C-alpha cells in the first residue's frame, strides 16, 4: 500500500467516522403524546385508564404482569404454586427488588398491598376482582401465601391489573402525587395540565430500560396532535386521536403507523329491563338493523374489527358470532312486527368519545330505516356515568341519611332509565360484567351466570376455553346488546422509534423495551 492510499484510506475512515458521529449519538429520551391526562398517579385508587397509561409497568409492577401479547407473565413474583384445590397460591418473590426510594420490597409489602384492596373503605375501583382473596400470609421475606375463599381461575390474571400493583406502606398514601414503585422507571416531575416526566431507575432488579427518560405530554385536540407530531414536539402517539389524518401520515417517510388490536369491545348497550327492550325479539331486530361495516368506516375511518359477541377477536378463544346479528333490515322489520313493536321510539345517549358520537348518528339512521324512532341525546362523560345512564338511580335512604346505592339491600332493586347507549368496554377479560345483576345492561339470565360461575372456579385450560366459548354464545344468542366492533389501536410514531407495543391487551404504555434505532 502506498503512502497515498494509506492517507486516502485514513481520510475516508475519518470521513466515515464524522458522518456516523452524530448518528451514533442516539437519543435516549422520548416524548409520548397522550390524550387524556390522569387525575392522580395512583393506579390502586383510580379507575381512569389514563393512570395506567403512564405508570403501568413503567413505575409500578404487580406480582404478575400483562405482556404485550396479552399473556400473563411473572413480574415481582418469579414463580408460584397453586394447591390442588385451587385455594392456596404460594408466590415466590424476586430477590433484590427495591422501591424507588431505596427500600427493599418484600413479602410484607405484598401483604400490605393486597390487604389494602379489600380493606374497609377501600377506594380500589376493581375491588370485585379480588373479593375472593380470604387472607394473605407472609411465610418468609420472599414467600407469600394467598388463600382464596373459593377457586378463581382468573386470579393470576387479575393480579396483573394495575389495580393490584405492589406499593410500600410508607409511600402508599402519597402515590397519587409522588408515585414510588418498583418499576424500571421512576417518577421525576409532573407539570399538571402539561406533562409527566419519568427517568430510568438505576436500582431496577430486572433488565434495565433502554431509554434514560421519557416525557408524557397531554394533547387532546386532534389538530394540535397532528401539528405536534409534524413539528417534532412529539415522537409517538400510542393512540392517535385523529384517525382521519392517518392516511396522510402513512405516506410520510418520517412516521410509521402501527394498527393493532385493543380489548375495547364497542357495543350498543340496550336496557334489558325496560320495555320494549325486555323483549328479545326487539333486541334482535335492533341487532339486525345495524351494518357494522358502515359504523367502522363512518365513525372510525375503517379502523376496527366487527364483533358478534363480547370478546376480542385476537383472543384464541374468540368465537365469530357476527352471523347471528348480520345486517338484515328486512328480518329486522319482521321481528319488530312479530313483537308488535312497529311503532316504538327509543332514546340513544351518546358520550363524547368520537366512536360513540359519530357511530351513534349512523346507527340512529339505520334504526330509523327499519321504523324505530330514535332520539339522540349527547351527554358528557360525567352525565353518562350518572343515574342518567350508567349508575342506577339512588334509593331514598332513611331520613337524614341521604340516598343509598341500590344494591345495598334488596328492598330497592337497581333501575335504569335509559334505552340505548354506545360505549367501548376497554378492560381486558371482562365478559363477567354480564353476570353482574346491578349492571347497566340489566341483563339477568341464570344460564349465563351459571356458565360464568363455573368459569371462575375452573382452572383447567381446555375446560376454561370451552366455557368461555359457551359464555360468548349465550350473550350473543340473547342479543343482550348490539355488538359492534373491537376498537383498533392506531399508533403513530417516528419511523426510528422501536419497541412500542403494537396491541393494547391492557391500557399501558410500557416503555421498558423502547429505543431509537439510529
Amino acid at each position: 500500500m502506498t503512502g497515498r492510499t494509506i492517507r486516502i484510506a485514513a481520510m475516508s475512515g475519518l470521513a466515515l467516522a464524522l458522518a456516523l458521529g452524530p448518528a451514533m449519538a442516539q437519543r435516549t429520551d422520548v416524548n409520548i403524546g397522550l390524550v387524556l391526562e390522569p387525575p392522580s398517579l395512583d393506579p390502586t385508587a383510580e379507575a381512569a385508564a389514563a393512570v395506567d397509561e403512564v405508570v403501568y409497568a413503567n413505575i409500578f409492577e404487580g406480582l404478575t404482569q400483562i405482556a404485550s401479547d396479552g399473556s400473563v407473565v411473572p413480574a415481582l413474583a418469579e414463580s408460584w404454586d397453586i394447591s390442588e384445590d385451587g385455594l392456596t397460591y404460594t408466590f415466590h418473590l424476586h430477590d433484590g427488588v427495591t422501591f424507588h426510594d431505596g427500600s427493599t420490597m418484600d413479602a410484607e409489602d405484598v401483604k400490605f398491598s393486597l390487604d389494602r384492596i379489600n380493606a374497609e373503605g377501600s377506594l380500589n375501583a376493581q375491588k370485585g376482582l379480588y373479593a375472593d382473596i380470604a387472607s394473605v400470609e407472609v411465610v418468609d421475606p420472599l414467600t407469600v401465601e394467598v388463600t382464596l375463599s373459593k377457586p378463581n381461575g382468573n386470579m393470576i390474571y387479575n393480579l396483573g391489573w394495575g389495580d393490584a400493583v405492589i406499593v410500600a406502606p410508607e409511600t402508599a398514601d402519597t402515590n397519587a402525587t409522588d408515585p414510588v414503585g418498583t418499576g424500571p422507571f421512576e417518577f421525576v416531575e409532573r407539570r399538571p395540565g402539561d406533562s409527566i416526566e419519568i427517568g430510568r431507575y438505576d436500582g431496577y432488579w430486572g433488565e434495565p430500560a433502554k431509554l434514560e427518560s421519557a416525557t408524557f405530554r397531554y394533547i387532546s385536540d386532534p389538530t394540535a396532535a397532528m401539528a405536534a407530531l409534524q413539528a417534532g414536539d412529539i415522537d409517538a402517539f400510542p393512540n392517535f386521536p385523529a384517525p382521519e389524518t392517518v392516511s396522510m401520515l402513512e405516506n410520510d417517510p418520517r412516521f410509521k403507523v402501527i394498527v393493532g388490536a385493543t380489548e375495547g369491545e364497542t357495543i350498543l348497550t340496550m336496557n334489558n329491563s325496560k320495555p320494549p327492550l325486555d323483549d328479545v325479539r326487539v333486541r334482535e331486530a335492533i341487532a339486525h338493523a345495524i351494518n357494522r361495516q358502515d359504523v367502522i368506516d363512518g365513525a372510525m375511518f375503517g379502523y376496527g374489527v366487527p364483533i358478534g359477541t363480547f370478546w376480542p377477536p385476537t383472543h384464541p378463544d374468540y368465537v365469530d358470532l357476527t352471523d347471528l346479528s348480520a345486517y338484515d333490515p328486512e328480518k329486522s322489520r319482521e321481528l319488530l312486527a312479530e313483537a308488535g313493536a312497529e311503532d316504538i321510539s327509543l332514546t340513544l345517549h351518546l358520550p363524547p368519545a368520537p366512536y360513540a358520537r359519530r357511530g351513534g348518528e349512523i346507527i340512529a339512521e339505520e334504526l330509523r330505516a327499519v321504523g324505530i324512532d330514535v332520539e339522540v341525546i349527547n351527554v358528557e362523560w360525567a352525565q353518562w356515568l350518572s343515574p342518567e345512564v350508567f349508575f342506577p338511580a339512588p334509593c331514598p335512604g332513611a331520613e337524614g341519611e341521604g340516598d343509598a346505592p341500590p344494591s345495598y339491600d334488596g328492598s330497592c332493586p337497581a333501575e335504569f332509565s335509559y334505552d340505548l347507549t354506545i360505549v367501548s368496554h376497554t378492560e381486558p377479560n371482562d365478559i363477567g360484567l354480564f353476570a353482574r345483576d346491578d349492571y347497566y345492561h340489566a341483563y339477568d339470565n341464570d344460564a349465563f351466570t351459571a356458565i360464568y360461575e363455573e368459569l371462575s372456579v375452573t382452572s383447567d385450560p381446555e375446560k376454561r376455553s370451552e366455557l368461555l366459548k359457551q359464555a360468548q354464545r349465550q350473550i350473543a344468542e340473547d342479543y343482550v346488546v348490539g355488538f359492534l366492533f373491537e376498537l383498533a389501536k392506531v399508533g403513530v410514531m417516528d419511523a426510528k422509534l422501536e419497541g412500542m407495543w403494537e396491541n393494547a391487551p391492557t391500557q399501558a404504555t410500557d416503555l421498558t423495551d423502547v429505543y431509537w434505532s439510529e
Partner: protein
Amino acid sequence: MSVYLARRFVSLTLSLIVASFVVFFLLEIVPGDPASFMLGLNATPEAAANLRQALGLEGPPIERYFVWVLGLLQGEFGISYAYKVPVADLVADRLWVSLPLAIYALTLSTLIAFPVGIIAAAKRNSPADLGIMGATQLGVAVPNFWFAMLLVLFFAVTLRWFSAGGFPGWDEGFWISMKALTLPAIALALPQASILARVMRSSLLDTLSEDYVRSARAKGLSRRQALWRHALRNALIPVLTIIGLQFSFLLAGAIIIENVFFLPGLGRLVFQAITSRDLIVVKSVVMILVFAVILVTFIVDITYAIADPRLRRAR
C-alpha cells in the same frame, strides 16, 4: 374621589357575594357525580359511595356553602378531587401561564392598536385609513383558533422556528418560556388589536369633532398638536373600557387557544375540571376569575378618574 371609591368598593363586595352564591348552587344542580366519574365503568356502587364519603360530598348544601366561603375568606380553596393537590397550588401553576400570556397578548394588541387607530383617525378617508379599516375588519372576522392553526402550520410545522405548543415552565429560562408563549400571544392579540384599533379610531374621530378641539385649532394649534394634546386623552375612556374587558377575557377566555397550543392555562384547567366534575376546582377557579374581573373593572374605574378629572369630584 373617596366617595367614588367607596361606592365602587361596595359594588365590588356585593358582586362577589352574589357570584359565590350563583357559582356554588349552579354546580350543585349540574348532573353527574365526581365519585362515579373517577371510578369508571367497572366500579361497584359501594366503591362510589366510599369515595363520595371520602371527598366530603355528603351533607346539606347550605352547610357546605358556608364551609366553602369561610375557607375562601381564609385563603383555603380546598383539595382537588381529581388531582389530590390543593386547588391554590393548581391555580398558582396555571396563573403563571395564563397571566403572562394575557399580559403579553394585551401588550402586543395595545402596541399595534394605538398607532394604527391614531393613524386611521388622523388620516381619515385616506388610503391608509381604508387599508386599516379593511385589515381590522378581517382581524375581527377571522376566528382566533383558525388563525392560531395557520401560525402553527407555518411557523412550527413548515419553518420549525417554534414548537407547535406546550409550555416548558419558567424554570427553563425566561426567553424559552416567552418563545413558547409568542405564537399563542399573537393569535390572541390579532383580533383584540383589530377591535381596539377600531374603537380607538372612532373614539378619536368623535373627540376630534368636539368644540374644544375646534377651539384649540382656532387658537393656532396644528391638527396634529390638537390631536395629541386635547383629543387623545379624551378619547381614551372607551379604549380603557375595552382594554379592561379584553384583559378579563384573555385571562379566562383563552381556552380555545390553550387547546390549540396545549398550554396548561387556567381556561383548560376549568374546562377539564368541569368535564371530570372536579367541582371544588371549578368553584374556586371561577371565584378567583370573578374576583380578578371585578378587580380589573375596579382598576379601570380608577383609571377613568385619572383620565377624566370630572369623575374625581364626588357625584
